[in-house]
């Protein structure tokens, strides 16, 4: 599979002086995929992208695009275009000439070129702004000009560095779907850099979660959310509460864990590579825990007291103190309506928490 992949990044590292910006990254991306690089500030996302575009040479490792080794290929010869975080539109050119800029290197007639520009402006719905300069249009429109400019030459691979970061929340959500639909229509492979996990989850077919220059997990949005491979990924994506635990046994394809904070044993989904007696981390997502006043009939039940609650309208967030003093976050959807909907439990109520073994994440690290 790795050999036939459209883009292969093999053991790529980049150091600036003694600083490792990117460390031994190996990834493969399929043709037509939207692939997200997700990670906090300074984790090396832009550096990795710049190596793909050819602005930086890897210190070690190889990059293959469509089977061709990209080492030493200058940016202007790579079939890779980049959409810069700042958009980098040419301020002295109109929207139209910006979009046409890459096409001057294509062997095509004037009419063909004009057609392509019109087609691109149409794609991003900017035809009426063709004659304006970049400073005469809005931020969202600039973003679309940058996209049209990067797509005009029909690159094999489009790199988008924080494409939506400069837009306000509402426009960002709208533009996410627009990006996806444009990707679908053009069939170009997208690599999107973002530090916004929701954006990565919405846009991408697959996500690589990065930390300190390393890729910590690659998988579909569901995989990285439901089955995080390590503590970093588990806590970076969504919120989560973690507990120290010890594996005491294996039964029916489930792990039996002893959790000191719970004062009881619980069952969790089995994970490969965990041995009996091993010290592990149990991680619980707030929305996977059910909160109830009466003790429920469930595999895993823990007792606690409501310390804090925040009512958000459609849902509420509870913070529960366990007998050991540990805190658990619980997210409850307020499905019922009216007064009774307000809350399942109140401050200082004694409550029962329960969760499915399948929803309990066991992390070996």
């Amino acid at each position, binding site marked *: 599979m790795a050999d036939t992949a459209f883009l292969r990044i093999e053991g790529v590292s980049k150091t600036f002086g003694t600083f490792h910006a990117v460390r031994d990254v190996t990834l493969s991306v399929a043709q037509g995929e939207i692939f997200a690089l997700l990670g906090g500030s300074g984790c090396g996302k832009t550096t990795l992208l710049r190596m793909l575009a050819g*602005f930086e040479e890897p210190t070690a490792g190889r990059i293959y695009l469509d089977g061709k080794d990209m080492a030493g290929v200058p*940016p202007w010869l790579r079939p890779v275009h980049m959409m*810069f975080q*700042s958009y980098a539109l*040419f301020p002295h050119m109109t929207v139209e000439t910006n979009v046409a800029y890459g096409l001057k290197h294509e062997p095509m007639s004037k009419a063909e070129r004009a057609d392509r520009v019109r087609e691109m402006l149409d794609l991003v719905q900017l035809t009426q702004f063709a004659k304006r*300069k970049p400073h005469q249009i809005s931020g969202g429109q600039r973003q679309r000009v940058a996209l049209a400019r990067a797509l005009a030459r029909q690159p094999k691979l489009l790199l988008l560095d924080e494409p939506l970061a400069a837009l306000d929340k509402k426009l960002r959500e709208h533009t996410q779907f627009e990006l996806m639909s444009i990707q679908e229509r053009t069939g170009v492979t997208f690599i999107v850099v973002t530090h916004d996990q929701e954006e990565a989850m919405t846009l991408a077919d697959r996500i690589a979660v990065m930390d300190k220059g390393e890729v910590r997990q690659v998988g579909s949005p569901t995989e990285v959310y439901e089955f995080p491979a390590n503590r970093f990924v588990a806590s970076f994506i969504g919120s989560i509460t973690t507990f120290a635990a010890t594996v005491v046994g294996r039964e029916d394809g489930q792990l039996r864990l002893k959790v000191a904070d719970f004062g009881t044993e619980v069952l969790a989904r089995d994970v490969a590579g965990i041995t009996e007696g091993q010290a592990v981390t149990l991680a619980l997502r707030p929305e996977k825990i059910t909160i109830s006043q009466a003790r429920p009939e469930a595999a895993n039940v823990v007792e606690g007291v409501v310390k804090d609650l925040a009512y958000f309208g459609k849902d509420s967030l509870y913070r529960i103190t366990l007998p050991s003093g540990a805190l658990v976050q619980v997210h409850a959807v307020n499905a019922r309506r009216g007064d009774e909907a307000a809350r399942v439990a109140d401050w200082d109520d004694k409550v029962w928490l329960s969760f499915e073994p399948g929803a309990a994440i066991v992390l070996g690290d």
Partner: protein
Amino acid sequence: MARLKAWFDRSGWSDLIVGLPYLWLVLFFLLPFLIVVAMSVATKTPTAPPFSFGGEHPWINLGGYARLFGDALYVRAFLISLMNAATATFFCLLIGYPMALALTRVSKSWRNILLMLVILPFWTSFLLRVYAWMGLMGKSSWFNAALTDVWNWIVPIDWAVKSLPMMHSNFAVVLVMVYTYLPFMILPLYASLERLDPTLDEAALDLGSRPWQVFLDVTLPQSIPGIIAGGLLVFIPAAGELVIPSLVGDAAAPMIGRVISDEFSSARDWPMASAVAVALLALMVIPTMLYSHYQARAEGTK
């Protein structure tokens, strides 16, 4: 604070402060200029000061302006001045542009050192530096000897010379003007190049342009205001230059500054000198107006 500001606005202090620079311009530029204009239409007399209005002479005497166009000396001096200034501006741009560009590409610490070096010549007397050039261009200098060797090596044997007659020529004037005015070209160019966003270069590279195309498509067009500003800063003083042509120029082909000076001092024809000065100013105002027109248009599209 707000009350203070209101009082400040109401009592007209702000007008005064805003107006002071203009007062300066009126006092030391507009007024002298008007005096010169008035003098240019006076009549030369053997009195002191050597001009007068009225009397048996006509009140306004346009004879000076008529001679400007009638006498080949003046037309020729204007042409030589414009040629020399244009050539000097061109070479300043040719040499200054790469230097300004390099300044934007080196590390911060190097940049400060190099900027210092650009300004450093101003710390030595201008006259001293011109004299140094006179020494270099003189027939017995190593500089002249080295250039002579190069010349003799390039040209056919019949054209070989013992030493190059560099001094007292337009070549010498242009050379020294380029040397003198180079910082006035580099600094505005640097200021405009330094403001450019380097990611624009990367965007152009990314879209398939080679580095030289990036320069032509992205860097050069965006630096036009800097080129024009630097060009004006070199061209205008170069066209009216007096000291350099007096010291190293060809006395038989004077530049206009020399003509004005001669009319004032040796010929004691103040009206004529004033007429030449007014004409020179008019000639310089045209490119400046073109520049501000260009700027206004560039800003108008914003």
